[in-house]
């Protein structure tokens, strides 16, 4: 192999890097990841001070006071419900991505089988003359070998086509992830607003209660025991949901990165295969003077070049080189061998990538389902609060929700 022209090794080795698993996001650190506009912030703060002033003005035992406390209990319920509704959906996706038995994985395995059948390295000494019963010279081993291409070309073309549509599926998956992430981002923005509102409320209520300690201790106690207590509870709920949502958001990014790497792999597998087949055509001509006509593959050249736009150029320049080398080199069979090695390298890279990616995916899904389970309790509480609110058909004039 040492004499193999270096030009063929020119293309950089395929390196597919699996993204790292998504770590667990602690609720305490979940806030502040999505920026809240300063204008919105001050608006929310205004809303809170209005609410608190109003609350303090009410008599502690009046139904009006109760109504306002109810508003605190229901605070952010809508935002939590909305974000939680998506948490189930983003758990599905990584699990689906881990499924190896369908789509691209299956096509690649099939391609490997076909390629192995054609591998010149596995055919023994092709240049040795073939002999009938080991004595009488009969036909050419080389000629038989290249005939193998003709019979498998339809199959290969099919696999490549199917890889192309598999790639489309991966792209579609990524497009769906983009949409989902956009939705999640919006949901996180609203959660963030609610967290800000809830924390401001906490501080304001605390101040008010401290002030009232001297003038009206009963009211201070009532505010601490109802309004402030529920506010703290809601803050915790919101932070928990935020943590889960952030984690899901990051997990989706992981799936997307995996898909992007896989698309690269599929591209490279297609290019190397087509390139090997082209090499075979030229080598066949050089060695046996046999005109190997691979119609399916020729037809594929154009489509593949379109599918693999990024690598298409590489393919084109390569073809010219292969042609030159195969025609002039003294060892065209080794050129072919090298082309096959390229396919194997690509597939091995994909396999290694998949194994690693699977690991980080498993870790991510494990952490995510843990957090989702934990947050379920909070969501149930939020749901309960909403139900209670819907029970009375009164349009609450002091609704606490995100902008």
């Amino acid at each position, binding site marked *: 192999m040492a004499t193999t022209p270096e030009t063929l090794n020119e293309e950089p080795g395929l390196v597919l890097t699996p993204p790292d698993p998504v770590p667990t996001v602690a609720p305490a650190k979940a806030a502040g990841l999505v920026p809240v506009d300063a204008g919105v912030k001050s608006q929310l703060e205004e809303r809170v001070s209005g609410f608190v002033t109003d609350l303090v003005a009410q008599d502690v035992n009046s139904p009006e006071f109760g109504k306002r406390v109810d508003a605190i209990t229901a605070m952010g319920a809508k935002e939590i419900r909305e974000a939680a509704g998506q948490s189930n959906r983003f758990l599905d996706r990584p699990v689906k991505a881990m499924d190896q038995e369908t789509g691209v994985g299956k096509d690649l395995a099939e391609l490997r089988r076909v390629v192995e059948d054609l591998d010149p390295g596995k055919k023994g000494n092709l240049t040795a003359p073939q002999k009938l019963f080991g004595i009488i010279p009969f036909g050419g081993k080389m000629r038989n070998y290249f005939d193998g291409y003709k019979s498998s070309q339809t199959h290969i073309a099919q696999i490549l086509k199917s890889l192309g549509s598999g790639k489309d599926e991966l*792209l*579609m998956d990524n*497009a*769906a992830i*983009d*949409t989902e992430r956009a*939705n999640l981002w919006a949901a996180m923005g609203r959660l963030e607003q609610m967290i800000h509102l809830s924390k401001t409320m906490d501080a304001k209520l605390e101040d008010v209660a401290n002030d009232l300690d001297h003038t009206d201790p009963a009211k201070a106690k009532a505010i601490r025991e109802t309004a402030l207590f529920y506010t703290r509870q809601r803050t915790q709920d919101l932070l928990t949901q935020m943590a889960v949502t952030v984690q899901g958001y990051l997990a989706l990014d992981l799936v997307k990165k995996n898909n992007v790497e896989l698309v690269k792999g599929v591209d490279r597998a297609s290019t190397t295969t087509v390139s090997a087949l082209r090499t075979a055509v030229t080598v066949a001509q050089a060695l046996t003077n046999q005109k190997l006509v691979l119609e399916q593959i020729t037809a594929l050249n154009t489509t593949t070049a379109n599918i693999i736009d990024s690598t298409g150029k590489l393919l084109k320049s390569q073809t010219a080189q292969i042609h030159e080398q195969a025609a002039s080199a003294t060892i065209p069979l080794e050129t072919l061998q090298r082309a096959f090695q390229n396919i194997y390298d690509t597939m091995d890279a994909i396999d290694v990538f998949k194994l690693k990616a699977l690991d980080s995916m498993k870790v991510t899904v494990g952490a995510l389902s843990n957090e989702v389970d934990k947050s379920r309790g909070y969501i149930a509480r939020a749901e309960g609060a909403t139900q209670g609110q819907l029970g009375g*058909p*009164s*349009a609450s004039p002091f609704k606490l929700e995100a902008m």
Partner: protein
Amino acid sequence: MSEVDDAIASARASWSRISDDRTGAVIARVPSRGRARQTQAIGKRLTRIAVADVSILIAAMVIGWIVPLGIGGAMLVMALLVAATVLFAVWPAERAPTPERLAAVDIRALPAQTERWLEAQRPALPAPAMTLVDKIGLRLETLTPQLATLDANTQEAVDVRKLIGEQLPAFVKDYEKVPASLRTTPRNGRTPDAELVDGLKLIEQEIGEMTARLAQSDLDNLSTRGRFLEMKYKE
């Protein structure tokens, strides 16, 4: 909103109904909705009458080929024609569905039935509730095509049924049970009329949110495919 605001809003609405601009197009459908349904009902009735009459005539012709009908037969056919026409003109009487029937009706037909029921309640409702009834009617119309492909067992379908099949009729019924003289008397600071309006407002908002929720997956699909096209052909 105060009553003055309401009055201004309704005046704006009627102005845009009269004027021919595009923003008025949606609102302009409000008064015509009842009429459109009436036209539809009359059309249905006329079709029934035509079908009945034509089938009587065909039957008479077929029988006439085998046994001559004679004068008596001709009179009988005419009598039958008149009877069928009168029958189908009067029967089946168009009646708004009862709340009990609303609870059992198929989810796809529910918005239309609820709308009819709500229209029938109009006379019993106070003036400020009228615009809300119109708005709810519009919302229900938007909801109808969305429910066409919805499985009746999904959570969304159950939510829709609960709101427009149970809560809305029950709420309006509760209001109607309050004696007319007490409806304008404040109780605990609010009149029953105001409570009705507030509740209807909430229901109207919630139906709007349901529409948004049901449209969510369609919106997602649209932007996903758009993004896919971008990824595949642009980048």
